């Protein structure tokens, strides 16, 4: 029995790097410090080898590569999707494959913080690290997100609770504000909760910006929030020493999408005339931030890239996976470390059922279960090393506490690149 200390958990964008794992007979038998999601990731993982599948039947790795390469090579409009739960090394290789076959390549960002990327391109990114927040932030605003459910240790490790260099009393030195449609688990633990009407985020953000600029509101309420409450929040924001707005899907998945996030970023820009303020998206998948980073280095764009002309073209709404599937344009799909069959709208999933799908995933997801070709792979951060980016853009090296018995995502992608070249 061995104990591996300070392992990185890759479940969500927090990338908590203090997890202790007890390992016995090549299985994780005890997980310490992780949240429920982290425990689920490690405890449920079985590293035993699994045969690849072609049309639901077990086959050899070579045969699966041959069939997948044939599908990719014969496609006229291939779509590559996923990337957010694998290492940045595998992400880099995926872009290489996309360029080789002239595919569209898109990450799960497009159904999470894709609109945030659009807003950042328009306004800029007033960012900071989670370390700065821990040591300095005395005002935390959580807008349209519910970290107590989605990022369970965020409060404890990075934001609300920890004692920091300039925050000696931890939670007592910080004010926590939640703006959300639902009185969520996070809202219940806030010092101030603003219940906003669904779809009114942009108006409220604009009103807050006006108040920060010293204007008065010609309204008794905006988006269901009384004007005096907004005034109170504006005062809190201007008078804090170091504020942060964390924002989530409540802004990006609803009416306004990128405009809502532009509202946040513009507000933060305005606040920096008065005090120090930052904004940070609550990134979901463990390495979705890495997917944006790697795509940006290699293609120049964070998601929704098309290589059909041999050079990268950017087109959210056109080259994004949901749009390519719902329009019926994609005639094959390679899915890496994600599960669109579980998380895409029904019309997109319906089209997936009519085209060949190749899935690369450690777990037999709904996508993998219906795939023409399925490659079971090792899990990054458990039996496969690599690099992942935390939600604040800090890169962390992932250990492999278990011995690897399956191919890595990189090995499968390398085999596909060689297979496509030799077709």
């Amino acid at each position, binding site marked *: 029995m061995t104990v591996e200390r300070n392992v990185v958990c890759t479940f969500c964008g927090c990338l908590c790097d203090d997890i202790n794992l007890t390992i016995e007979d090549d299985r994780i038998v005890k997980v310490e410090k992780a949240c429920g999601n982290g425990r689920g990731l490690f405890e449920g993982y079985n590293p035993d080898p699994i045969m690849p599948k072609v049309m639901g039947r077990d086959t050899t790795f070579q045969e699966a590569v041959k069939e997948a390469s044939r599908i990719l090579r014969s496609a006229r409009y291939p779509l590559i999707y996923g990337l957010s739960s694998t290492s940045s090394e595998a992400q880099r290789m995926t872009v290489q494959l996309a360029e080789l076959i002239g595919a569209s390549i898109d990450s799960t960002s497009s159904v999470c913080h894709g609109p945030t990327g659009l807003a950042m391109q328009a306004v800029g990114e007033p960012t900071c690290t989670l370390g700065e927040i821990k040591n300095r932030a005395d005002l935390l605003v959580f807008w349209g997100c519910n970290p107590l459910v989605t990022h369970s240790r965020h409060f404890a490790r990075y934001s609300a609770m920890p004692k920091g260099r300039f925050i000696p009393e931890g939670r007592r030195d910080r004010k926590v504000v939640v703006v959300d449609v639902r*009185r969520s688990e996070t809202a219940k633990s806030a010092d101030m909760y603003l219940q906003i*009407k669904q779809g009114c985020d942009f108006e409220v953000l604009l009103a807050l910006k006006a108040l920060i600029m010293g204007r008065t509101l010609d309204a008794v309420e905006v988006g269901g929030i009384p004007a005096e409450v907004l005034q109170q929040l504006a005062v809190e924001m201007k008078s804090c020493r170091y504020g942060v707005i964390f924002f989530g899907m*409540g802004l*990006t*998945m609803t009416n306004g999408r990128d405009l809502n996030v532009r509202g946040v970023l513009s507000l933060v820009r305005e606040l920096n005339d008065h005090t120090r303020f930052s904004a940070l998206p609550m990134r979901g998948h463990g390495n979705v931030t890495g997917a944006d980073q790697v795509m940006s280095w290699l293609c120049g764009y964070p998601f929704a890239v098309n290589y059909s002309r041999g050079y990268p073209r950017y087109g*959210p*709404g056109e080259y994004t996976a949901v*749009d390519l599937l719902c329009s019926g344009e994609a005639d094959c799909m390679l899915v890496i470390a994600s599960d669109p069959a*579980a998380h895409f709208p*029904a019309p997109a999933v319906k089209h997936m059922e009519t085209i060949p799908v190749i899935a690369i995933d450690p777990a037999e997801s709904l996508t993998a279960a219906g795939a023409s070709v399925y490659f079971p792979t090792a899990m990054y951060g458990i039996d496969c090393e690599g690099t992942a980016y935390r939600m604040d853009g800090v890169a962390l090296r992932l250990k492999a506490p278990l011995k690897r018995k399956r191919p890595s995502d990189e090995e499968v992608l390398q085999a596909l690149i060689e297979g496509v070249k030799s077709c």
Partner: protein
Amino acid sequence: MSDESFSAVCTLVTGRTLEQAKGMHIGKTEEEYRKAVDKAFLSPEVLSKLSLNEGDEVMLKTRCGKVRVRVYADAGLPEDVVFVPMGPTANALVGSDTEGSGMPSFKGLQVEVVRS
């Protein structure tokens, strides 16, 4: 909407829940996952208006699709919002329009809650 005692028009919000995450770890092809995502939450006031008890089945209808789910109370919800955990059931209600962004309307569609 023909009879207010039989149906209510609300706004659909989908999102994560602890139960959905737990089911996901067990496996998306398992019963626990289906149970975690095949449900909807309404405010206790709307449940009362529609004479519904927790666990009763309703039909949810949007312009993009319809599903049958069991309903449960969430006192944190406003009266005009229905919350459905993210997953295949919620996705049957979400359309293909991304408004040129790549992002479908996972939150914000009008949904009708019809008592079975």
